Each structure stands twice: as structure tokens, then as C-alpha cells.
């Protein structure tokens, strides 16, 4: 069940915040069918765009108060109250009922919108670092929609009950994100269907959780299509270097005591040289715990398409040293490679550096990941910002991309 009122969240854990209207925001595109399904009163297509901007185009006070990580944010006096659940670094929940009480909107609808990229909490310092600026690049939002739609096509094609939590819309905020190298990239908002997340005592699931088997099942299913949830952030590297063993999680070198290093090496079956372990990064909604066959997953920024898979897969669990849970080695019978009949084409999904005449910009090349969906998404974002493309153009290019990706499926 998706939450429909703020009270459906654990009330004491929601932090209310004042948020401010972004008068420069423009809707890029909306999933009208989904919106009309979830908000049945929204039957008039012509009202949807304005309704979305009215109810979702806001920025947090913590973000508005600075211009270190973004260009100055123009806001109007219009305010409402939004809610930040635990571990929501840059997303906020908007309640239509609360918006109305704050003078926002005139309809009588109820329900919730989850808006990603709406800024940091008041007491958080936005920084020029990954996961720390409170914002979402507009291209990143468009890429997430591409991945979400691709995942749902895969889940339907494989006749499984899994689903990606769908998004309602993408909004261009009108201001830019600043990067550490001085470049600027358009900032966006991703408006998603509201959902509840599991609460983990240790920040992530424990080794005894049924979600371990579930995440392996989904990761291995996706790998048949060439898709993986594993990006650079959850790759663990163990390496011998000058008679010492170094351990990195993502790009971060970690320090451990000598006996802990030995335990990690044993858990990873590390003997010598350099070994990479790929940590599964599938994030579930709360309902996955009680209904695993119809599990829904969220947050798709870390999904990629690979030509093949070369390293052991590991479940990341909170109750083990270095989060090293169950591992599937490359010799394990469960370890799979992409199926030629259904794998997503590398020409569309790989890192060939260009797609449909689009190339990576200098700013984007500084990022760690430069797959073709990202090149496409960031160019669509820039073209929309510069009014070279309409929202309908962006939508239609995404559909073309998805259709080309699955044209070979029987």
C-alpha cells in the first residue's frame, strides 16, 4: 500500500520544514496516466502541468539560504510545509492537504508527492561533494526516469511481480548546480510516487534479512539483461600494496586493525593481488519485507548496463565487518552473464561516448560515470533548459530510446 497521508509515515520520525516557491520552475514532462490513476480527480489533462508545479516546485530553506553549491535561488514569498523522513538527504514529502492548509492549491484532493532534489535540511551544510549538495541534476532526474522505465519493461518481460516505483514528473528548477571544478549544470526535481521505506537499525539490512535473497534474485535477473545495480559507490577493493593490505569502499580508503583486516580477507576469500567485490545496491520499499514476490524498488541512479560481469557479488549488510554479507563468487552456479537474446544493446547503453549525435559535455566528462543514457539525459536536460526542446520532445526521445533498446525482445 502506498502512503496517502502524512500520518501513514511514522509520525514522530518525520521532520517538518518550511519550503519556498520556485517561481522559475518549469515542468519538463509528466506521467499523466499514472497521475490520473493515483489522483482520480485529475481528469482534465490541461490542469496537470499547473497542478504539479503548484504542489511540488519548492526548495528547502537550508538550500535557499546559500549559494555555495548552486547559483542563487530565486524564491517567492509563497511557502508550505514539507516533511523529511529518516535518511531522506535531498527528498521531501509534500502533502496535498497540508499544502492546501498553507494556501497552496485550490482543489480538494488528498495524497502525497515525493520530491527528490528539493534541498538539504535546515541544519545540514550543503557541500560540493557526492550526495552532499542537496540537489539533483536535471539530467540525473531524466536518467532516473529512463532507468525506471527500462526496469519496469524488464520486470514485465520476465513475467515477475517486481516493479520500480514510478515517477510522476520531472521539473526544471531554473537554477544551476555548481560543481567543484566551477562548471554549472541545470538542477531538477524528480517527483515520485510516495512510498515507505524499511527502517534498518544499522543503516542497511542485516545478514538474516529476507531482503538478502530477494536482492540477489533481482540482481541476477537484471544481469540476464546486462543490467546491474552496482556502481562505483558500492565496489569494495582489497589489494596488496607494498606488503600492506589496502581496503577501499567506493573510492574511500578505510582503516582497520590488523585482526580486522585478516577477518575481511578471510570473508572475501582474498589471498593475494587485488580483488573487487561488487556490493548489490537494490533499495526496497517497506512492503518488500512482507510481499517479496511483488517487491518494489527505488533509487535508480546507481544502475548500469555492462557487457559482462567479472567480479564476485556481495550482499551489503549492517551487522558484518565492512558490510560483507553473503557472497556469490564467479564460479558459483548462480553467477550469470547477460543473455544475448535479451541483453540491452551496448550501442545504446554502454560507454561509447556518443549517442544519436549527442556527446558528453566537458562538465559531464569530469564525472565518474559516462554511460550513453547519461549522455542522452544530460543533453536532453540542457536542450530543454535552453528551450531547444519542448517537454514533449524530451518525452518522445526517451520513448524512442526505450523502444530501440527492447526492439529485439520476442
Amino acid at each position, binding site marked *: 500500500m502506498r502512503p496517502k497521508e502524512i500520518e501513514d509515515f511514522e509520525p514522530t520520525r518525520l521532520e517538518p520544514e518550511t519550503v519556498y516557491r520556485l517561481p522559475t520552475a518549469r515542468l519538463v514532462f509528466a506521467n499523466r496516466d499514472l497521475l490520473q490513476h493515483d489522483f482520480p480527480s485529475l481528469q482534465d489533462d490541461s490542469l496537470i502541468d499547473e497542478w504539479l508545479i503548484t504542489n511540488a516546485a519548492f526548495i528547502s530553506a537550508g538550500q535557499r539560504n546559500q549559494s555555495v553549491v548552486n547559483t542563487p535561488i530565486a524564491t517567492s514569498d509563497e511557502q508550505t510545509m514539507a516533511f523529511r523522513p529518516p535518511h531522506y538527504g535531498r527528498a521531501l514529502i509534500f502533502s496535498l492537504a497540508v499544502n492546501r492548509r498553507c494556501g497552496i492549491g485550490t482543489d480538494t484532493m488528498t495524497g502525497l508527492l515525493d520530491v527528490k532534489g528539493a534541498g538539504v535540511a*535546515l541544519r*545540514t551544510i550543503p557541500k560540493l561533494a557526492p*550526495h552532499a549538495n542537496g540537489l539533483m541534476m536535471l539530467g540525473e532526474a531524466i536518467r532516473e526516469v529512463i532507468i525506471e522505465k527500462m526496469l519496469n519493461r524488464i520486470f514485465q518481460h520476465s513475467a515477475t511481480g517486481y516493479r520500480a516505483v514510478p515517477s510522476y514528473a520531472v521539473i526544471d528548477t531554473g537554477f544551476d548546480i555548481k560543481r567543484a571544478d566551477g562548471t554549472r549544470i541545470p538542477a531538477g526535481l524528480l517527483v515520485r510516487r510516495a512510498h515507505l521505506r524499511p527502517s534498518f537499525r*544499522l543503516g542497511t539490512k542485516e545478514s538474516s534479512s529476507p531482503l538478502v535473497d530477494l536482492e540477489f534474485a533481482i540482481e541476477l535477473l537484471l544481469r540476464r539483461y546486462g543490467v546491474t545495480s552496482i556502481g562505483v*559507490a558500492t565496489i569494495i577493493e582489497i589489494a596488496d600494496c607494498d606488503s600492506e593490505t589496502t581496503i577501499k569502499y567506493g573510492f574511500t580508503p578505510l582503516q582497520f586493525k590488523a585482526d580486522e583486516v585478516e577477518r575481511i580477507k578471510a570473508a572475501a576469500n582474498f589471498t593475494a593481488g587485488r580483488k573487487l567485490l561488487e556490493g548489490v545496491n537494490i533499495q526496497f520499499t517497506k512492503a518488500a519485507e512482507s510481499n517479496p514476490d511483488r517487491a518494489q524498488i527505488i533509487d535508480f541512479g546507481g544502475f548500469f548496463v555492462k557487457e559482462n560481469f567479472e567480479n564476485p557479488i556481495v550482499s551489503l549488510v549492517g551487522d558484518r565487518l565492512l558490510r560483507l554479507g553473503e557472497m556469490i563468487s564467479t564460479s558459483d552456479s548462480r553467477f550469470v552473464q547477460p543473455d544475448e537474446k535479451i541483453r540491452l544493446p551496448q550501442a545504446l547503453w554502454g560507454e561509447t561516448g556518443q549517442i544519436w549525435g549527442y556527446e558528453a559535455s566537458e562538465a559531464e566528462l569530469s564525472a565518474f560515470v559516462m554511460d550513453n543514457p547519461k549522455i542522452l539525459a544530460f543533453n536532453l536536460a540542457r536542450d530543454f533548459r535552453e528551450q531547444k526542446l519542448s517537454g514533449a520532445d524530451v518525452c518522445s526521445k526517451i520513448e524512442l530510446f526505450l523502444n530501440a533498446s527492447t526492439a529485439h525482445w520476442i
Partner: protein
Amino acid sequence: MSSTPPQLTIQLFQGGFSQDLAQSGGPNWSFPVFYEIEAGNNEPAQIANIITPGKTTPLQLGSQTVTGSGSSVSLVVDLGPCTGVKIGSNPFGEPDCDYPFISIFSATDSDTFQIACTSETTNWNLDVTLEFTGPEMPPAFADVSLLVDGATYKSIPAGQSSYNPSGTTLSFEFDNFKANNGAIKLLYTLSLT
């Protein structure tokens, strides 16, 4: 009718922390704050701000009166090149001690956050939730303890736990803190028995 005590948060991250000093009160604030840096520093912290919804106040070294508006008050510190700070505040004008909140954060030593102070021995109810960041960040680490009158009372495990300490001061101590680009969040509610 008794009201539910507010839940306050202390979050430690790479090179700094944020701490709620109040989550209900106001709407106007005016209270004393002192701000010191560890000996040997040539510069204050890169950021040391008191934040209310209506105002952000950069702290000056020494004693001052901070004003603001809105229902909440938070303290945010990012050390930058500074190696440590000590900041005391009294947002509710507690008569029993000058500074019931005293936050000591150091890049090289343990970190201590005094959250309550009374002139006579007091019995408290304290509910704590200790959280760690999710899998997209490397695991952060700290040994967290509850101190009563400056002495270790209990170790605080990850997740939820409850305590009934008795004394004149309560503090949380974070030892061996390693952010690893992640964060540790401690949420608590404090009430009298």
C-alpha cells in the same frame, strides 16, 4: 496534559556536526552562547552557525547573545582547517546552569555533547536511536556512550535504546569517530521521570 518531549538530533559527519538545541519553543529567541576553539588553532571553524528558521547567525569567538525566530534552534559546525571547537548555549534560559548544552568537537580527539544540566540530582527518561548511513556510503564508525556527571553510564548500541539515568549532567560521547564520508545520527528524547 503532558506534552510529548521533542526529538532532538546530533549528527556527526566528516569534519563537523549538527545539533538540535530546540525543536519546540520560540517564536522569538535570545540566548547566551560561548564559542571557543582548541588551543593551537590560528583560525576559527570554517562554519559555526546557530540556525533558526528565520535567521542564520555566524558565531564569533567568545561570548555573545544570539537572536532568531521560529520554532527550532540548531547548531552547525564545519571545522575546515580548525582542529576543534567548544560551544555552549542556553536557549531556554535554564536557571540551574549557565550553559546546559556544551558541544565539544575535535578532529583528533573524542567528541562530547552535554545535553542537560541541573543544580540538583535529577531522574531522567532518555530514549535514544543511533543510526548509521546506508550502503551507498562507506560504513561510518564510533563508540558511543552516555555519560552521567562526566562518567560513563552506558554504551549506546545501534538502533533504539532507553535509559533512566540519575545525576546533574547528561552527555553523549563519541569515541573513535570515523566518518568515512558518511555520517552518524543520534536522535534522542529527554524527559523528567
